[in-house]
């Protein structure tokens, strides 16, 4: 049990404490991925690291964009962009739940004074061909973390399994600071969350709900998709071991992420019909699964070395 601490007073102190906590447990502390993603799961540090046999432990803060959740900065709890603290433990330690609960104590939440429930909530990301089994962790009725045992990524069975902990940082900070609005949260002792982020919430809501050029977005989606497809096709034709080693699969994955974000923008703009929705999700998933498979082939060139097989 971590030693008893006062509640983290600011958002950044919360981030420091969580980073330190997971640093002490052997995690690589990564920096946010510099591309628009809907969740920390999409980052290569999760999506690609979860594949294959090599153990890994990583924690990072990831700004996550969910265009559809934008509320022009008017809703005290809902954000176009929010911060997730993402922790990947591969393979999961047997006491992973206890470690997680200790991390809450490290933030300054004295669990003896609160109630915690692990309520069933399985996670699925259809555009990434990824799913897992787990819970939403409820602290006094507030959902603070998504706790998932990944089972598949890019359509591939995972072995070993990874645990993913996704902390909702704004929610936790508001809870620790007893703030009713996320915008009132202290980012640090002198600056509020609203001062830093309100304009961004407003302007991005305006842009994506009212202004974004739908034709341009579709065109971009087509371009990125075509480029990703071109790379995957080239990979399949590439036999020379050395050429395969240096083949740009990571950039191919970034193209997939671009597609995924553009799709979210179009969706928020109301430009995607129900059937188009299913089709585009299917197309992006195909790319994501293609990259996942290629990535395993590249990292573990002999077939025996790659234990995961296509599902």
């Amino acid at each position: 049990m971590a030693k008893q601490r006062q509640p983290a007073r600011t958002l950044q102190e919360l981030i420091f404490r969580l980073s330190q906590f997971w640093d002490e447990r052997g995690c690589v502390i990564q920096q946010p991925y510099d591309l628009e993603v809907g969740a920390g799961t999409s980052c290569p540090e999760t999506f690609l690291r979860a594949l294959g046999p090599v153990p890994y432990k990583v924690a990072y803060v990831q700004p996550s964009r969910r265009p559809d959740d934008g509320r022009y900065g008017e809703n005290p709890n809902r954000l176009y962009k929010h911060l997730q603290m993402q922790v990947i433990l591969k393979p999961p330690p047997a006491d992973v739940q206890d470690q997680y609960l200790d991390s809450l104590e490290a933030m300054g939440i004295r669990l003896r004074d609160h109630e915690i429930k692990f309520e069933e909530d399985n996670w699925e990301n259809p555009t990434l061909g990824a799913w897992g089994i787990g819970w939403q962790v409820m602290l006094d009725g507030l959902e603070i973390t998504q706790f998932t045992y990944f089972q598949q990524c890019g359509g591939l069975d995972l072995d070993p399994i990874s645990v993913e902990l996704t902390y909702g940082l704004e929610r936790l900070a508001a809870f620790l600071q007893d703030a009713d609005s996320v915008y009132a949260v202290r980012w640090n002792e002198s600056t509020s969350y609203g001062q830093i982020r309100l304009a961004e919430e407003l302007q991005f809501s305006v842009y994506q709900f009212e202004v974004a050029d739908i034709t341009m977005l579709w065109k971009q989606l087509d371009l990125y998709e075509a480029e990703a497809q071109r790379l995957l096709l080239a990979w399949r034709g590439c036999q020379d071991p050395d050429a395969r080693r240096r083949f740009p699969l990571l950039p191919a994955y970034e193209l997939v992420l671009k597609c995924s974000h553009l799709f979210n923008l179009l969706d928020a703009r109301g430009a995607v019909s129900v059937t188009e929705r299913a089709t585009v999700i299917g197309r992006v998933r195909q790319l994501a699964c293609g990259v996942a498979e290629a990535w395993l082939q590249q990292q573990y060139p002999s077939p025996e070395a790659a234990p995961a097989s296509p599902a």
Partner: protein
Amino acid sequence: MAEPKGKEFLLEIGVEEVPAWMIPSALEGLKQLLTEGLVKLGFAPESLAPFQMYATPRRLVAFSASLPSRQPTTEELIEGPPRRIAIDASGKPAMPAIKFAEKMGIPPEKLITVATAKGEYVAFKKIRQGRPTAELLKELVPQAVLGIYWPRAMYWEGKGGPHFIRPIRWLLVLYGGKTIPCAIGSVQAGKWTWGHRQLGKAKLAVKDFASYRQTLRDHFVILEPAERRVRIQELSDSLLRAEEGLRSKQDPGLLETHTYLTEYPTPLLGSFDPSYLALPEEVLTTVMRGHQKYFAVEDAQGRLAPRFLAIMETDADRKGLIRHGHERVLRARFNDARFFWESDGRTTLADRLEWLRTVTFQAKLGSYFDKTARMQELAEQLIGAIREGGGAVSPEEAAQIVRAARLSKSDLTTDLVKEFTELQGIIGGLLARREGLPEEIATAIYDHYLPQSMEDALPRSLGGQIVSLADRMDTLAGCFGVGLAPTGSKDPLGLRRAAQGVIRILAENKLPLTLETLVAKSCEVYTVAQRLGEAPEWSEAAARTPLGEFLVDRLRYYLREVRGFAYDEVNAVLAAGRNDVADAVRRLEALAQIRPTENFEPLAAAFKRMKNILQQARESYGYAEGELHPEWFQPGPELALYERYLAVYQEAERAKQSGNILAALQAIASLRPAVDLFFDKILVMDKDARLRNNRLGLLATLLRQFSTIADFAEIVPREPTSAATG
């Protein structure tokens, strides 16, 4: 053989939180696997003290007060060669016996002689000593545990590891106070249990079941679900007693969830600002129940009170922090809802119609704008058909129903429905009322997704029933027409459920609408829409006949599975007419009532015989029914049957006309003596073609005239022993 003395068996599977709703059936499964496993190992079921099952989200527990300490000893008789060749004249074993004994691994003296139907044989009585139960449990326990069925299981130790609902973290397996050394994945069985996460201690040694229960209780785990349930109820009641007239809204489903979501449940009474009560109760309750798993609280007048009951997974809220937290979350949720309720109200349902153009109903069938246009048209047609069927619908009422159909889907564009999808329809109804639309319109919109299941309520008003029918029939005709009819067990669009609702509304609201009319009118609406260039891929051929059959199929399902009528009665009634659902139900009810009476089944058998005779006559010499010549009937059983027929026919028609189907059936059943006598004395297939055809004609007439309620030939005679009625 004396039964070995039994010993206590205790199994606790320590597991990370199992989804509440899966626990009861998993316990049932585990109990069965353990019991069947032991029986398969040769234990007599009565030698096992029945397993008592317990569970919390973190543990599945099986306890038996006594399992025999050893598997029963078994004897097996293995026959060898015949005695006459195996034993020589002097009674000594000969070569075949020696060889057989060798094979059995025993000296030949141990062979015995057995007498069989084929003669005497030498044999060996093999006695298998039962293995110690402790040894058997080592294999049985992991097998049974991993054999539990889960709707969606997972790996946690990699693909070579165990597959279970959530990771198993400890195993307590005690038999006669000793640990059974077994393992599941990397977890070795031990003699320890774990207390409550926050309130109890970890790794507590257990001696036996009594100490186990006490240890858990000391460490804040209430093992018995029933006790947790009672605790939730009693503590909730005492909290509510503090304020005059408050009581919790009954919600057995939610109570069950909390029972299996907690190890040490303690209710907490929270409050919210009464100003939120200005929001519709449906919205508040959905937020509390659906999102937060709170019990809603009502006052003495049955109105929603600004209170809620949360169930904590801990013993108390000493510092008030938990209550503060729950109230804070609920406030945020209510604020969201209020924001939506206010902003949604700024645009009328009528103005939202335009927005529906961008909401796809189905790619090949257009948007919800298109759908509501068709529903409006279909509602109008259905009202016309109801009027034709004798139903009264005033012009004003008709106009409101048609308008309700048009506005029924506008709420799909509201933020409230996007947030709380389960409130679709309800939100539309509430917004309609707030806009000041007539109550009939509001109610029809509010109810039009009903019924959602076989147990669900039906739409309260005729308007709701018609809008619900128009909605469902438009979906069904549309989807069938573009090749989306369900196949096999796959029904992603929920068309079976949609059709089931149609049947229930027709059957239980007794609407004068036939299935044929519903199918014809809904297809007609699509045909008209096509002329305007909509739904170009829709095909009437794909929709009409298959949809009609689909609905009859659902009707059959409803009558058998939901109403519980016998299959042959359902067949008989539907063979006589399957178009008017309410009428089919009435006929079936009467048939089931007359079925057990003495004349009925023999008469049904006679009808079957008539059918067969006619069939044969048609096939063997091309008999075709001609005019009946009463003057050719010969006095005696033949003429008597004809006269009886005339009398019964009139009586049955009169009864039917006055709506008394049972009386009509009773009249028909009274034909039995005349029919029996006829078959007894008269040879139908007379050599004289004139007489023969006239007799066949009589049978054909009987069949035709008396098969309008049910085709009695479909009735399968029951064995006298199974006299239960459907």
